[in-house]
């Protein structure tokens, strides 16, 4: 039976949420405009608030309906069918919600609702203007999931997640024969996304996106109500929270890429990454100008521009990643849902509204009476914000190349511009210098801020400078850094750590609450040091130095490009030297759900098209038997782990399990690395090619050998020796009775560096002959004991050969990557400290105003930084 009710209810709530968002916008708008009388303003505000509560309820109901469909496996719905399957565990059922565009819009809408409710709760004076903008944004976002076709002009607005399969794919022939057809199982979640980071990364990132709306709304409200300075106090803590969450969201994405994708890094300068990183940079710049905005009018004006730019850039990013404009330029953009027009209208509406309002109010904004001194702290912080913006501008200028093509196309010009060939080198070339300046400024700025370093007090900077030079000289010598730009960047980062560390040490004894800035800056500097070493000194360990490519020796000597030697072929059970390690590929393993370790694939028989397997033997791991032979066990059917043993020169052995997923919808195999984490470096290994573990083995035609004892013969170019034929009481998989007999041949086969013993058996059982063949995967051989000729004393063996199993792998070493993760934690703590402090300031001020019973019209008193 098709459950149509839940989808209809969901769709109804979508429409309700859209309409209430529009009504709330209007209500809040009426509550702000001066033509409404003060008493009516209160009434309108109460009405709009009520409408927003209804909107919030409707949004929650929409989310609930979609989860109901997903959780109950209603595969008659396209969303459930396309993104989930029966085998999916709870956490991935949750994450499948934001798999497609519709769900990710809903996630964004959901966060906006939560943030909106918090703002209504915490703000008095600002509620109406801020929520007017919030509700308008909600209306635009709801329109993306509306899924309504306007009759007459056939205009489709939005794409609903509540489409039935028969509505989304009406052309399937099955609907004619069986309109109530429901698929038995869904398509499942893309295996790459079945990763715990993918459960928490998108919600974090979308909360980051959503929260950039808050500083934007306050800036707009400030312009609207001509409160050009007062908006900063409520907006600042939210800007810090936003920068924290957006930053963490972006880094989680990087970490997911590092752990799951196989491009060998955490940051690829991919357009999708860039378009979320640029708003973050601008937001951080905005935070800095907002901090000094109450003292400096230029900074105040800049704060407006940057708060607006942050949000508009988030919209731009949304447009880029969801409109299909990136095309082949990005590895992970969404598929085009035909929403590009709607997205463009959304972007342009807010661009025009905000820039228009800013221009309209520009003349009323204050300006500085006197020049800012180059020795003032405002000057240095402003420079820092400027460099952040330039850094963002550079990233944006390059990332927008596909957009230039589209714009030119709209004017009939064919540009054919493409992104730089080596994007990483292109961006690093600029960003290295920007961040070098930024890190130096974090130290200098803090000194000007806290130590009142000025024209006559520059000497306060000498001590940290001296310490820096000593530390960096030691590090540069020890780690033998020879590249000038790296030396400079390292020195700058160490200076930032030392200078901010000194400041931190000074203020933490007084009041730890104000230490957010210094802590955050130390985090950034540590991250840069981590990035410098882990990226600048990445080393490919898997350089191919086996003699295999002799056939193409000329090409290898002609081209010194190391890229062509970075992959290594490993044959099953055959050790190969790689750098300092001796590598052996031992086995293919699978992942049972209820056994704590991966188990060899040969222990089970995987049921095709299912998520279960049948045990071929007792499954015993760490002395505990989990399954008996013949039991059925649940496994992750797409995942195969390649057990690679690393032997260090010291004789120490460790094992890595890079993963390969057999995923037909992704084009065959998808591999993910396994990482050996040491304190000072990561060893990163992934396989780039395998012989398909699910494919049937293809055996060659049978070849027969008739040999006598101790004879030497050649099987598939290996030397084989028939050592012995002995009577045996035990043959695997065969029960021998009292009158039965079995012999096994002992054949020694010599490979390059090791020898194997193969023992096929010959069984006489109930007067019938049984021949138990033996397969050796490492050699790609199957040997069957065919005949015993008692007269001649000769034995006949049937041999089939197959392609020996191999994998192609790559290993990379990333030094000091942990410094990057450490820096990230420090950064998060710093932002949290700063946000907490600014939120306290806001609450204190708000309550004071409440007591005085007035709106904040007078100039807010400046908080003087504490003297150390």
């Amino acid at each position, binding site marked *: 039976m098709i459950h149509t009710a839940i989808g209809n209810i969901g769709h109804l709530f979508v429409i309700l949420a859209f309409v209430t968002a529009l009504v709330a916008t209007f209500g809040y708008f009426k509550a702000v405009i001066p033509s409404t009388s003060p008493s009516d303003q209160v009434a309108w505000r109460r009405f709009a608030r009520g409408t927003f509560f209804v909107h919030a309820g409707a949004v929650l109901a929409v989310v609930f309906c979609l989860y109901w469909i997903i959780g109950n496996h209603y595969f008659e719905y396209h969303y459930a069918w*396309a993104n989930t399957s029966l085998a999916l565990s709870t956490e991935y059922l949750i994450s499948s919600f934001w798999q497609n565009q519709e769900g990710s819009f809903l996630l964004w809408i959901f966060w906006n609702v939560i943030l909106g409710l918090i703002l209504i709760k915490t703000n008095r004076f600002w509620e109406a203007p801020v929520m007017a903008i919030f509700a308008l944004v909600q209306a635009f976002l709801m329109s993306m999931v509306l899924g309504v076709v306007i009759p007459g002009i056939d205009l489709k607005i939005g794409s609903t997640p509540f489409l039935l399969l028969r509505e989304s*794919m009406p*052309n*399937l*022939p*099955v609907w004619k*024969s*069986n309109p109530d*057809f429901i*698929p038995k199982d869904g*398509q499942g979640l893309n295996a790459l996304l079945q990763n715990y980071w993918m459960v928490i990364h998108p919600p974090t990132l979308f909360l980051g996106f959503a929260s950039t709306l808050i500083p934007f709304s306050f800036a707009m409200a400030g312009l609207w109500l001509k409160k050009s300075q007062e908006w900063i106090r409520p907006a600042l803590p939210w800007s810090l929270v936003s920068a924290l969450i957006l930053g963490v969201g972006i880094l989680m994405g990087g970490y997911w890429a590092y752990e799951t994708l196989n491009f060998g890094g955490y940051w690829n300068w991919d357009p999708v990454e860039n378009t979320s990183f640029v708003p973050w940079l601008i937001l951080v710049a905005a935070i800095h100008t907002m901090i000094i905005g109450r003292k400096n009018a*230029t900074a105040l004006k800049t704060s407006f521009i940057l708060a607006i730019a942050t949000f508009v850039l988030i919209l731009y990013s949304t447009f880029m990643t969801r409109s299909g404009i990136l*095309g*082949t330029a990005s590895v992970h953009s969404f*598929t085009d849902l035909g929403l590009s027009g709607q997205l463009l209208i959304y972007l342009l509406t807010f661009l025009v509204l905000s820039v228009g309002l800013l221009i309209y109010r520009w003349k009323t904004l204050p300006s500085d009476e006197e*020049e*800012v001194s*180059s020795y003032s702290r405002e000057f240095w912080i402003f420079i820092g914000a*400027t460099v952040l913006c*330039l850094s963002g*501008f*550079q990233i944006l*200028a*390059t990332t927008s*190349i596909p957009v230039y093509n589209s714009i030119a196309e709209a004017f009939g010009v064919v540009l*054919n*511009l*493409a*992104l*730089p*060939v*080596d994007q990483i080198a*292109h961006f690093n070339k*600029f960003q290295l210098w920007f961040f070098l300046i930024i890190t130096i400024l974090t130290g200098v700025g803090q000194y000007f801020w806290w130590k009142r370093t000025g024209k006559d007090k520059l000497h306060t900077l000498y001590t940290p400078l001296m310490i820096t030079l000593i530390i960096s000289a030691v590090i540069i010598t020890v780690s033998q850094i020879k590249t000038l730009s790296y030396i400079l960047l390292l020195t700058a980062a160490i200076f930032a750590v030392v200078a901010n560390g000194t400041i931190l040490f000074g203020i933490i004894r007084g009041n730890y609450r104000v230490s957010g800035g210094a802590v955050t800056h130390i985090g950034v500097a540590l991250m840069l040091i981590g990035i410098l070493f882990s990226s600048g000194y990445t080393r490919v360990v898997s350089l*191919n130095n086996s003699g*295999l*490519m002799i*056939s*193409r020796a000329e*090409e290898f000597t002609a*081209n010194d490009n190391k*890229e*062509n*030697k*970075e*992959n*290594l*072929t490993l044959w099953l059970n055959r050790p190969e030297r790689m750098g300092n390690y001796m590598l052996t590929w031992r086995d293919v393993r699978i992942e049972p759900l209820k056994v704590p370790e991966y188990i060899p694939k040969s222990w089970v028989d995987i049921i095709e098209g299912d998520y279960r397997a049948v045990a071929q033997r007792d499954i015993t791991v760490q002395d505990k038997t989990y399954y008996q032979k013949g039991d059925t066990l649940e496994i992750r059917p797409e995942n195969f782990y390649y057990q690679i043993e690393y032997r260090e020169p010291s004789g120490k052995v460790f094992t890595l399990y890079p993963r390969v997923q057999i995923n037909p*919808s*992704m*084009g*065959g*195999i*998808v*591999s993910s690395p396994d990482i050996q984490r040491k304190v000072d470096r990561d060893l990163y290994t992934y396989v*780039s*090619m395998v012989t398909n573990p699910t494919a049937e083995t293809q055996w060659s035609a049978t070849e027969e050998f008739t040999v006598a004892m101790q004879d030497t013969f050649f099987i598939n170019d290996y030397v084989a020796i028939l050592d012995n034929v002995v009577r045996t009481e035990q043959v695997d998989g065969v029960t021998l009775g009292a009158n039965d007999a079995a012999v096994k041949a002992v054949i020694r086969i010599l490979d390059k560096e090791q020898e194997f013993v193969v023992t096929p058996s010959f069984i006489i059982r109930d007067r019938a002959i049984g021949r138990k063949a033996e397969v050796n995967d490492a050699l790609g051989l199957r040997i069957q004991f065919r005949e015993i000729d008692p007269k001649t004393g000769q034995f006949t063996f049937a041999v089939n050969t197959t392609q*020996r199993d*191999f994998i192609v792998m*790559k290993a990379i070493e990333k030094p000091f990557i942990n410094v990057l993760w450490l820096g990230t934690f420090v950064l998060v703590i710093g932002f949290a400290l700063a946000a907490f402090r600014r939120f306290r300031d806001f609450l204190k001020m708000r309550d004071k105003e409440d007591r005085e019973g007035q709106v904040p019209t007078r100039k807010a008193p400046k908080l003087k930084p504490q003297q150390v």
Partner: protein
Amino acid sequence: MKKIQIFGLLIIAVAIGIIVSTAGDASTYVDFGKAQAMAADGDTKSIHVVGTLRKDAQGQILEMEYRPEVDPNYFAFTLVDNNNKAQRVVYKSAKPQDFDKSEQVVVIGRMENDHFAAEKILMKCPSKYENDKLEVIESKTAAL
């Protein structure tokens, strides 16, 4: 002139510098004919070429060579550009994993003698949805 104005000019100068140098680093989309002409002129700049793969009736890619047992770092295939010009492409690295599935391929690199030496390969795989439809028609309806 006020300090703020000098500062503004400086920023504009840096911004222009960024744009100019971005334009210098940007690559272009060309066809194989143009790529050959560029190589003949001694222009070694890397360029993008968009093309499709030759496939047989079963969807198997034709003229593709990858033998990891001999050399895991040598992958060659034939790409047909938008002007129907076929060109041998050599990629000195492991074969990209989703290559078999891809329809449109972008190769980035330059012409070297008789072949196009690719530094990077971008693949455009068929959209997930179109693909889903096919699978449903083949497997699901057959099971009914």
